[in-house]
Every structure is written in C-alpha cells, then in structure tokens.
C-alpha cells in the first residue's frame, strides 16, 4: 500500500445522484484545474487550482442594507456603490482566508474548492457506494482529474479494492505516461475532442489537439480493457460542421473507436463566469438546434459510429 495519507487535491464539488456521467447512478467528483480554457466552459470555477471566491450578485441582499462582508473583510476587497456591490477581483483573487464568505448569510459570497485527502474523499465514496445500485459508481471529472494524477491514482486504487465502478471525464491533455498509468484503474472514460482542426482547437480551448489525439491512439493501442466514449459539446460556428464529424469518424475508425456522445451547447455556466469576475464570450452565440444535432448524428450513424445525443445514451 502506497502512503497516500499526505496527498491532497482541491475539489470544487462532489455531486451525488449524478446520472449523465456514465452508467447508472453515480457520484461525480469535480477536480479543480484544467489544462484547457474552453471559452464556453460551463464549470469555469475549475480554472483555478486553489480554493477561490465566487460572488453571486443575484442573491446578494445589498438592497436590504446588508454589508456584513465589508465589515469582516480585512483587505477592503468589497465595496458598495449605488449600483451595488463590487468585488475588487485583483485583491480577492489572491485571498485565501475568505472572511467575507463566513459573514455572508445569503451564500452570495462562496468559497469554491476545498482540499480533500484521499481518506476524506474515500469516506464520502464509501458512503455513497450504498446508493448507486448495480450499474453505477464514481466518475472523476473536473476540471481535469488527470491533473491530479498522484491523488487520483491513490483514490482509484482504493476504489478498485472495493470493486467500485470507476469512470473519468478527461481532456486527455496530459503526458501520455500519466494517462497510461492511470487508465488501467478506470472502467469507463469520456474524452472530449472539441475540434479536429488544430487551429480551431487552439482558438476555442487555448491548446492544441495533437497531444489529445495521440493520447487517445496510445490508449487504444495499449491493452486497456475499458470503454471509451468520445464527447463534445456542439457549438454553432465552431464544431457543428459535417466536415469536422467526418474527420473525427476517420480518426475513430483508425483507432477502433465506435461511440461518440454529442451534447447540445447550453449556457448554464454563464452566471459562474460573472460570479468569478470574467466575461463570457458565448452569451449570445453558440446555440445549435435539434436538427443540427440529428443531422450530425445521422452522419455518424451512416459511418457505423454509435452517436448518442445528450442524455439519450445506452448507459
């Protein structure tokens, strides 16, 4: 048994009864930190690896005179004008004590991300193990769980001792050796391929897709026995073309892959960008209609690739 007692990772959520992240009912563990910076990301709070502040102005009770946060903040990070509260992000992004959040009764100021040890996470998973049913298990998502390889591996080893079904959602944008080291402990994986065109991939996610694609090939070439489903959010004007689908089909066939899950672009993460003091690029663009998704699905199906739309999956 490796000594994993000192390893910690920052998790920004542990979601019970997670039903769209792998087979059956699951618990999904969200790791902070991601190698990609997708401009449409629905979990932008994972960009920062450390615990950090989020501010939801919508639920702030400043109009009813509450100023509890300013009274507690030792750094003058919060100010109120006639327009309402203002977070001084240049100060608050550096904060690691978060006095304001414990003073906030409305949960408008929240700390995002918490350090977990392997034992702490395992005690949650062991508890939830009672609830998943025969199909379910745990999914490690994020962010990208593979950024925390040492911690992740320690947790996976413990899961396998208990015969827990494991899944990951990863960008696969990590060193090949890391991927191949982790994956033998994983039963099911989602890997995102946001765009087959490298330039476009860079433009959308800030990184090249070359490492991602070569990692997928390497994984398939290894003796890994798990199930791999490719995934991507379909974004209008970015990756909703038939040409992109054809290129992905070619890649999948070369690598013996046959399942892809396309997701309809949504804006559920928009307010989170605002709560972090960022601007959201996709506030008014990116929408795709159902016909586009079905057209893409039929392209895949015509090439004998199983293509699932959204949560209409056989798992």
């Amino acid at each position: 048994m490796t000594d994993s007692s000192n390893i910690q990772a920052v998790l920004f959520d542990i979601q019970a009864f997670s039903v769209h992240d792998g087979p059956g009912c699951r618990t999904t563990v969200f790791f902070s930190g991601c190698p990609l910076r997708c401009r449409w990301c629905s979990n932008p709070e994972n960009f920062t690896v450390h615990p950090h502040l989020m501010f939801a102005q919508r639920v702030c009770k400043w109009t009813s005179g509450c100023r509890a946060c300013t009274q507690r903040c030792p750094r003058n990070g919060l100010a109120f004008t006639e327009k309402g509260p203002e977070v001084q992000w240049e100060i608050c992004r550096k904060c690691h004590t978060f006095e304001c959040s414990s003073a906030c009764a409305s949960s408008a100021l929240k700390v995002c991300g918490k350090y977990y040890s392997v034992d702490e996470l395992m005690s949650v998973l062991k508890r939830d193990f009672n609830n998943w049913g025969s199909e379910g298990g745990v999914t490690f998502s994020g962010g990208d769980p593979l950024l925390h390889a040492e911690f992740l591996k320690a947790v996976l080893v413990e899961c396998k001792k208990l015969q827990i079904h494991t899944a990951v959602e990863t960008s696969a944008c990590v060193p090949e050796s890391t991927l191949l080291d982790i994956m033998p402990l994983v039963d099911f994986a989602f890997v995102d391929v946001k765009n087959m065109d490298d330039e476009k991939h860079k433009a959308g996610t800030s990184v090249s897709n070359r490492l991602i694609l070569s990692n997928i090939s390497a994984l398939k070439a290894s003796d890994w026995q798990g199930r791999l489903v490719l995934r991507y959010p379909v974004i209008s004007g970015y990756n909703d073309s038939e040409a992109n689908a054809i290129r992905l089909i070619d890649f999948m066939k070369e690598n013996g892959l046959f399942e892809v899950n396309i997701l309809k672009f949504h804006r559920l993460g928009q307010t989170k960008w605002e709560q972090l003091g960022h601007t959201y690029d996709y506030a008014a663009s990116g929408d795709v209609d159902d016909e586009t998704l079905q057209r893409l699905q039929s392209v895949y199906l015509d090439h004998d690739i199983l293509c699932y739309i959204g949560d209409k999956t056989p798992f």
Partner: protein
Amino acid sequence: MTNEEKLNELLKQRGINPEQLTAITMEDILAQAEGCTHLMDIYYTLKNTVDMEYPYWYNRVWQENDGDITIVRRAKAMAAALSHMTVTIQPYEKLVMNKTRNVRGAFPFPWVTASFFNAQAEALMSEADAPALSEADAVSIVGEGGGNVTKSYGNIISLAKKFGIRKEEIPVLVEVSKSWNGNSVEELSNKYARYTPGYQLEQNIMESVLCMFDSYCIPQGREVMNYYLPLQYGWDGIIDLCDQRIEETMGESDGDGILGMGRGYYYVAMKIIAQGMSKWCQNYADRAHYLASIETDAVFKKNYEEIEAVMAHIAHKAPQTFRQALQLTLACHYGVVNEDPQSGQSIGRIGQVLQPFYEKDIREGITTEEEVIELLEFYRIKITCIECFASAGVTGGVLSGNTFNNLSLGGLNRDGLSAVTPLEYHIIEAGMRCRTTQPTLSILYDEKTPESFLMKAASCTKLGMGYPAWMNNQTGMNFMMMNYGPEGMNLQDARAWCLGGCLESSPCCFLPLEYDGKITWIPGGAGPTAGSGVHFVGLPKVLELVLTNGYDHRMKRQILPAHNRKLDSLEAVQEEWVNYLKQIIDVVNKVNNLQMDIWRKHCMPIVNSLLKPDCFTKGRDLGMMGGRYNATINFESCGTITFVNALSSLYKNVYKDKKYTLEQMLEAMLHNFGFKTSYETGVFSPDFREATDEASKYAQIFADCLNAPKFGNADWEADQFLKWYEDTMFGLTRSFQSYYGKPLYMCQISVSTHGPQGFVTLADAAGRLAGTTYSDGSVSAAAGTDKNGIYAIFESATVYDHGTQQNAQMNLKLHPSAVNGVQGTRKLLDIVRAYMRKGGFHVQFNIVDSKTLRDAQAKPENYRDLMVRVAGFTQYWCEIGKPIQDEVIYRTEYENA
C-alpha cells in the same frame, strides 16, 4: 430508416441491448378515455359545493327517533340521508354515485360541530361579512384557484374559505344547526373538557396554535377501507346475516355483562344501514333507467342501460363482474365518507381485492384489459371528486383541500410472496393516462416485488404528478408488529398492512373471499382511525417557548407555565423541551380523548362499523373497539427538521463554541435577525428576506446561525439531534393512553400544517425567520440547507430505525432532466431502492422544474391541471395556499446540468 432505428441496429450489432434505449415518454402514453376528458372538464369547471340534503334528512330522522338506542337511531338517520339524496348521473359516466348531488359536493355535519353556524346564524342569514375565525383558521391560507370558493359572490356564500353554498340553502343550514346547539360532539366535549385538569393550559395551547387540530373535526379517516362483506355477500346477504345474528344475540349477554347486550342493537343498526345502502344504490339504477328512457343518442342510452344493470345488481346481490365489484367498493367508500367529516379514508390494496373478479372477466371474455383501464380511469375521477367539509384551518391549513384517499399497491400476500397482481399494473396505467390528484398511489416496496412492476411504477412517478410514492414494506411490517403485536397481530396480518391516509401505516388483515370457485385471501383495513389524538404539535414552537420561559411573543401572553430554569447547557434546553412537551400532550390528550369518547357514544361509525373486521363478528361497533386492532390513536408532530436544526445551532453557537450567549441568541431571534417578518411582507418562503434598519446589527449572528451544521448533510453534529429526538419520542408518546386505553405513538406527517404552524413561530436559532414555513416532511432537509446531495440526506434520515414510528416522510424534488432519457426510469428506481435498503420508510418525488412552478404562481390560469406533491399527497397547484406553494418552490431541486 430513422436515426433511432439506425442506432438500435448498430447497438444490436455491437451487442449492446437496444431495449435500453426505449423508455416511456409522454408521447407513448395513451390519452385518457374520451369520457374522462369530458368529466374532467366538468370537474375543472365546477366549484366545491355545499348543499343541505343529507344534513336535512339525517337531522329529521334523528329527531323523529328521539329516545331510541343511539346506534339504531344513528343508523336510521344515516340510512334516510343516503337514500333521500337527489341522484345525479353525468353523461359519459360509467361508474356512478357521489357524496351528494353535486360533482364536487360536501355538506356540514352539525351533529359533530354546529357552533360555527349557530354563532354565525344571523350573519349568514343577513349575508353579512365573512364570519370571524378561530385562531387556526385565521392563520390558515387556502389556495385561491381551481374549485375553491374563497369569497362570496352573487348567490353564493363562501364557507370555510373553500366551499360555496347557495343562498336559498342558508335557512336550512341555520335551522338544522340550531337543533344541535349545545349537543354537538364539539360542544359536549367542550363542556366536559372543562373538568380536565389543565383545561386552561389546553386552551392556551390551541389558541397559540402550538397544537392545531381538534379530533372532533375529522373523527374518522386515516384508515383503510374493508370491502370484504359486501363483496362476499351483497347487501341482501348482509341483511340476512343480520337477521340471523339478531336472533342469536338479542337478549343474550353471552358472558359479557358490559358489551354483550349491545350486540343485538348493533345488528339491528347494521341491518338498517345495509338496507339504506341498498336503497341508495337502487336509486341510481332507477335514475339510470329514467335517463335511458328519455335518451335519444344510442351510445348514451346504452351507457345508461349498463349503469342501470350494474346498480340494480349491486343494490342487492354480491358482484359477479369486475365492473360490479368496482362499483360496489365505490358505493361503500361514499357511504363511509358520508358519515363524518373525513380525510384519509383509504382504498387500500384494491388491485389485490378485485383481482379475482378481473381474472374471471378476462378469462371469460366478459371484458378486455382496455375496458378495465378505462373503468379505472373513471374510478380516479370519482375519487378525485371526494371533498371534505371542515373549517378553513382543517381543510386548507391541514389538508390543502385534499382528502387523501390513498390506494396502495404491491407488498406481500398472506403467504409472504409478492402480492402484485396483473390488475395493479392497470391501476398504474390508468394513473398515467388519467392524471388526477386522487387516488394517490403508494407502492409497498419489497425486495420480492417484481422488477417489471417497480419499473412500471417508476415510469409513472417520472411523469411528475407526484404519485406513486414509495413505502418500505418491511419497515411498515416492523411497525405493525411493534405497535399491534401486543393486541395479537401475527406476521400474516402484518403482511396485510398498507397506507391509510397519506402516509399512515394502518393495521389490516386478510379475509377469505370465495369467488370464481376458489378462495382468495384479500387484504383490507382492520382498525379504526389514526386521524385523531394529539395532532400537529409544532415542535419548533415548543422550543421557542422553552427559550422564552413559556411566553409567546407573538400573542404577547404567557402560554405555558414558566419553567424558570437557567438554561446553562443544551441538556437543560432538551430537558425543558421534553417537560413542556409532556405537559402539552397530557392536557391535549385528555381533551381529545373526551372529544373522541363523546363522538363514539353519540356519532359512532355505522357503515364503517359494518365493514371493518371484526366488528360484525363481535357484534360491536368500531368506536367500542369492534375493530381487530385498536392502538391507532397517535401523537402527530410538525416541523421535525426545523426543530433539529435549531437545536444544532444552539449547540454549536451557544453551548459548544460559546460564540454567543443564550440572551444574545434570543434577542436576535426576537428581533427576527433584523428582518421584516413574513406577517409584514406577506411572503412565507424561507428564502425571502427584507431588512430593517437593524439588519447589520444581527448580520454576523444570522450568518453563524445559517452556517451552523444542518440536518441532511450526513453530518453527525446535526443528525445526532434527530436520533435523540426519535429515541426520546418513542418512549414519551407511548407513556400516554388513548381513549381506547392503548399507548399513543408517533405519526410524522406534517400534511400542510408546516405552513400555519411556521406562521406562528418566531425566528429560530437555525436562521429560519419568523412566520416562514417549517421544513416539510419529517426527514426532508430544510430547503436550501442540504449541500451534499441526496445520498447524504438518505444517510442523515436513517440515523434511527424508521420501523419504530408510524411513518417518516421524505420529499424530494428532482429536475425532470435527472430522470429523462433512456435510463432515467431505472435510475429513479435505483434511488428509491437505495433509500429502501437503508430502511427509509417513504420517499416521494416532485419531478418538476422550479421555473414552471414560479410561472404557475404568476399565471395560475395557464396551469389548471398542474399537480404537485405537497406532503403525503398530490394536489392541484392552484388549489393550495401560497405559503405551501412558496415552500414547494424553495425545496432543493436535484438536477444534473
């Protein structure tokens, strides 16, 4: 080929089971029967209506028989009332009968309570302003939409903020009520209640709404019907049996010097009521005959002729078809709900009771499965139309206008095997096609229940009507053995249990129905009501009074005797809370015992005393413990988790961390943490806050109260208080006795009382503001405080054995996206199973988007048919009061973005 076909083809090639991709979607469910659509249109259009036919005849015949033996006199009055009511049959109906001549009809029972009408006689006669209300009524808010008549208009006078009565009936109402002036159950019990020690304390308790319900308001219900006798013998057969028994028992004490002689009168009364029921059924046959004779449309004519044949048959003989049997059970149901103000008179496991009839008809080609489903759809509408007339506090505040006629499915049969029948699949199917609030469906989940049945039930739950709810069969059986074992309940009878009322585990038994050449052991109720006792004690309010030394700051009065104890530890708070609760139960129990004792002496159940075993065998009515099991009377709690969270915060902030003194905490609570109260704002949702100038003064303590450990997060620091509470209450409730001489136990359903009782409660240590609704259910997390997801709630909820009490209530709200798609049904079932495996007694779901609910609150006219799960029942959104609407919206919604 469509994409779906292609995908299925490819899945097959890959060896992945394509069946997993087919799930029931809304489009796949067949539309309700055409006739049901017409009848539901009528239902939606019509208002709750009170008329005086039944009370008039009851009163007239009662007075005519002055001096007769009470049970006989009452049977005569009731039989006369049933058989004199105007009979109405709606076009398209296949199942007939109603409580009254009106579709959504009800009537007052002045013999139970008349003071309201007598006090208001003049006001009513002059159609003056709305009558004054009792405290509980004044704080209860009835939904304003749908069929409720909350205000008088035109020729209609509003009663109890819910019913309309036509002006011309008012003189009858006033006249009939007058005859009961001073001798209704209410007034007689008030008279004797004054002799109880602590009567003034009891009055204080009721006035402060610390406890909010008088037993006489709903003296029956929350029990399970038993249809055995009429199904086996028919009314004529029962009349013959009565004659036999009269001959055997009249004038014979048979060794029982107290009750032996009563048997003769009992059988006389039973004969009279059987004749009355028979006549009532015959009246429908006659009416149908007349309608057929004047009908020109061939389809309608045939319909009336069929009704005539069914009603003429069941007016006398035991049923010979499924339709006759179903119609007969309905007649019994209406007969029982017409004898007292009732709620929770439950249908029980009717899919097992009627299976022999169904099986024979299908085998012999007398009917088809589709015809059976159609009848079951009509049945839903019939049950939905059952209204209950009580005061506003009871109808709106307690019941949200629902009468909880629960239908249970599944469980085990007498032999300990799965009891699921083919007919029960159709009952669920009918509930999927014809979406009405009643009967609500309850699945008795057992590890032996077939997966296909559970999947069928989960497909129905998924549709978002709030039914079926899921109950743990083994936990229910454990409670049966624990509570009724001392009365001799054995394992076989324990297996017969089901829900009587929204969530009340009720004692039942199996009886041998001889039909179709074989004996089928059919389950049915075997005990009296669980609907009375010490009902709805606001646990958080008791805690508030502990902290205020018994002084109610809302009413500005000393309510409970000062304890004068220095609360220097949490244990001291807990001890004083227990002491207060004991005092409350003691005085309230005595008064309610009196109410129910006077009820059973003057207004004993008649139809129900015929049906419920072992009354007929013993020759004794239900009030005199004719039932097989009688330890049904209970203590009912409200606001469990609000209370647990308040204790948890007191412990954390005052006693453990010592961040605040108790005085500081109390001051903050009395100042509502610097916010306006919901009395001032008119908003009862726990998440609404409007600050006063003092807000900043209490900002920190408020945040600390909100941030203290809360139940529902698998956090022992908070959950330990639930465990302590449940363990304490187990013994505490059982130290008091009902009028049956049996120990009380705890029923933990708030129904809708978490609205009004929250209304009277000040801010608490957990940061809940004054007047806002308590947490719903008994083990649901307080809205917005469960941060760790459903599995953590399950963990918290099962820190004690649910089999020790009658029930434990868990409400969950799921976003529809969490269970849609191909695997959603299975995943919903997974979550039910997860909770059941932990021994959770009950879980029910609202599968609805909060956005939809907000829109429905703003534009009720667009959502006439929207249904939500409130506590143990489903109700039309527009017919529930705003505090409960707010609470349902604010419940944490589980979704998967």
